[in-house]
């Protein structure tokens, strides 16, 4: 009996824990999305000069380049996904009737 209660209590705690982490993620989901898009824009501005875009003086880019590994990865991924954005946006902003 005690074991059952303990397990039930653990299950309830588990459910609330899951709910809690679910809510936390939901409440920053769009913020994370925006942060990622800004990272994309940031590195686009810097690297665009190598692709002919008007850009900051090249030296700024080369000075910052070594620290932008993560951002460049974001850049590559977003470039792939940018053509399939409709459903992604709908999911991100919960667009439904």
């Amino acid at each position, binding site marked *: 009996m005690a074991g059952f209660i303990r397990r039930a209590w653990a299950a309830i705690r588990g459910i609330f824990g899951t709910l809690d982490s679910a809510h936390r993620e939901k409440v920053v989901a769009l913020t994370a999305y925006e942060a990622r898009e800004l990272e994309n824009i*940031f590195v686009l*501005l810097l690297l665009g000069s190598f692709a002919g875009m008007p850009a900051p003086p090249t030296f700024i880019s080369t000075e910052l380049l070594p620290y*932008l590994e993560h951002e460049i990865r974001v850049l590559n991924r977003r470039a792939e996904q940018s053509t399939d954005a409709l459903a992604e946006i709908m999911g991100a902003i919960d667009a439904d009737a």
Partner: protein
Amino acid sequence: MKTIFFTGKGGVGKSTLSAAAAYQLSQRGDRVLAISFDPAHNLGDIFDVKLSHKVKKFSDTLYLQETDLEEAAEEYIRQNTDILTEIYSYTRAFNLDRYFKVLRHSPGVEEYAALTALEELLRTANDYDVVVVDTPPTGLTLRIMALPRITITWVDRLRRIRRDILDKRHTVHTITGQYNEAGTKLAYEAKDDRVMIKLDELFNRYVNVAKHLESDETQIAVVFNPDYLSLRESQRIFNGLDDLNLNVDVAFTNKYTEGLKQIADEMEKELLGPLSEKPRHARVPWEPYKRERAYDLKFDMLPFITDGTTN
């Protein structure tokens, strides 16, 4: 510390006048550094010494330096490619690291190298009372002088985006306790973010340069000759500086002779007339180039480059 920039078309006697100014100031007791960015390397010739990037003592109060912009550019590129080859060191195994050297040919490297040299100069030359700068040819000079403002604008814009990114990461971290990608922790505080630190560093550096250039501590002298050949280019200099909101403090009509009075009058009217703030102006008489002590001009530059006060 005051800075005096001597600008003008090549061959008008810029280097000679800047050398003379430096010499006369040093004779008066100021600690002077005369530095040349001009690839023509006239400064060393005028003082009859071999000059390099290392400061050379000419007298107790006069020090000389020549910055080779090409060398500076090479050095700058080398520093940055070193970082890249370090991070991507595995490319050494395939000798692919040599491809990073193509960066040497990026647009703006020369300017940036000059700007870095200038920034370094302004930052470190504090034990001088005056720094007299012989500038490179017009186009380059104007581009270099424009750089601080351009750089500042760009760096500031990038800083703002970066701050936004960090703020959002911080929000995510505060609420979910994590912001990382595949195990690597991403910074969410400005003090931990190497990119932000770098951006702030760049920003402050160039704000200082811009402030210095726009302050009263900086004097800009334009040198021209009374011949129509130098009229157009001199106009470009005046206009260019005006676009950058930099004042011309003193103008010299160099190599003047009485026979050229009419031309000189015309030119001075055209160049100086439209200016809202008239610079101090002097006609420096033509003096034959002396083989020795070429820096020792008869003409007294001091009243013009020191605006009459005892600075």
